[in-house]
């Protein structure tokens, strides 16, 4: 009996002992694992960007020389109702570069006659306000500029707009053919990133 009990107790003690050891071991492992997990972390940051307002330029008014007499040169100043007007819209106060491709002559629709056109170094004005009237340019712009070499420091106004006002001169010959003449003026504008 005693031996049976002893044996029984011995087996039971061993079982309990094993279970305890296993528990302790497992606990140790858990503690160890927890220490390793806390050694790293994850964070989510962000990359952000704000795309500027789209830059656009449009031809608002043609440069209108009107009636021209053979042999009589005619000039249109940049500050009249007949001046050419180009409107630029984009991000307020952004730096822009402007390039104008001016015609050397106006031509008839059939191309059978041409009339020279000329632009002086003061035939342009860049107005960085909302003003669209060439006769009343706003302050703080760039008056009397060379339309072939517009200032590199041009910026859009605080309202996100600007205008180019353009004058010029035509030189008809004494035997200039009567009729309507036109010439293209191409304006390219781009953000400079400033």
């Amino acid at each position, binding site marked *: 009996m005693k031996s049976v009990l002893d044996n029984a107790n011995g087996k039971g003690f061993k079982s309990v002992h094993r279970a305890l050891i296993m528990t302790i071991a497992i606990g140790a492992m858990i503690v160890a694992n927890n220490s390793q997990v806390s050694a790293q972390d994850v964070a989510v940051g962000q990359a952000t960007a704000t795309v500027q307002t789209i830059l656009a330029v449009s031809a608002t008014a043609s440069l209108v020389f*009107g009636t021209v007499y053979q042999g009589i040169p005619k000039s249109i100043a940049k500050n009249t109702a007949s001046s050419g007007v180009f409107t630029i819209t984009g991000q307020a106060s952004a730096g822009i570069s402007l390039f104008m491709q001016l015609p050397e002559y106006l031509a008839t629709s059939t191309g059978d006659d041409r009339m020279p056109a000329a632009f002086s170094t003061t035939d342009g004005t860049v107005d960085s306000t909302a003003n669209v009237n060439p006769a009343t340019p706003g302050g703080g712009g760039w008056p009397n500029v060379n339309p072939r070499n517009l200032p590199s420091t041009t910026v859009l106004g605080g309202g996100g707009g600007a205008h180019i006002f353009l004058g010029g001169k035509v030189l008809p010959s004494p035997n200039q053919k009567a009729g309507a003449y036109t010439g293209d003026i191409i304006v390219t504008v781009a953000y400079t990133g400033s």
Partner: protein
Amino acid sequence: MYEEKRMPQFSRMRKSGVFAAIAVVLVLSIGGGVSAQDATTGSATATVTTILSITATQALIFGTVYQGVPKSIAENVTASSGIFTITGQALAGISLYAQMPEYMATSTGDDRMPVAFSTTDAAYDSTANANPATASGGMLTNINPNAIPATTVIGGGGGSHLFLGGRVLPSPNQKAGAYTADIIITVSYIGT
């Protein structure tokens, strides 16, 4: 073994984070490389006026002239006054310059007869009227052909006329025959 299984997961997470960062950098790089620009085409326009022209419509005809007897023709004689017709842009300002002869000569040039023009020997009509004898409302009369007014304009119909008189002074022994002389009229737009 547990740690060995963990290591690949950590490695994958680190790799994912690196890839995401790289992707962000690439996106920002691409976004910074594109600069907005625009272009437009405007125009310059002009209308060239009707071509200006002048023609000698009728000669100043002194007709039969007697030696030693001066003869005048007024600027308002239908069949005898000189007539010049101007066409061009309606209401355009023009300048007129008349180069008057000092004498008339034979075709061979073997004789000459003086001719004179007074300060009232011309008239300018800015209407379509081509008859020197018919006074129109737009006529400038008694003007000096050597100093035609600078305020001359083409009529509203795009046409005008210059009427011219004069006087020849044949000598008593003026050679018989036909005598002629050139009258040159220059017209140009003045831009008004």
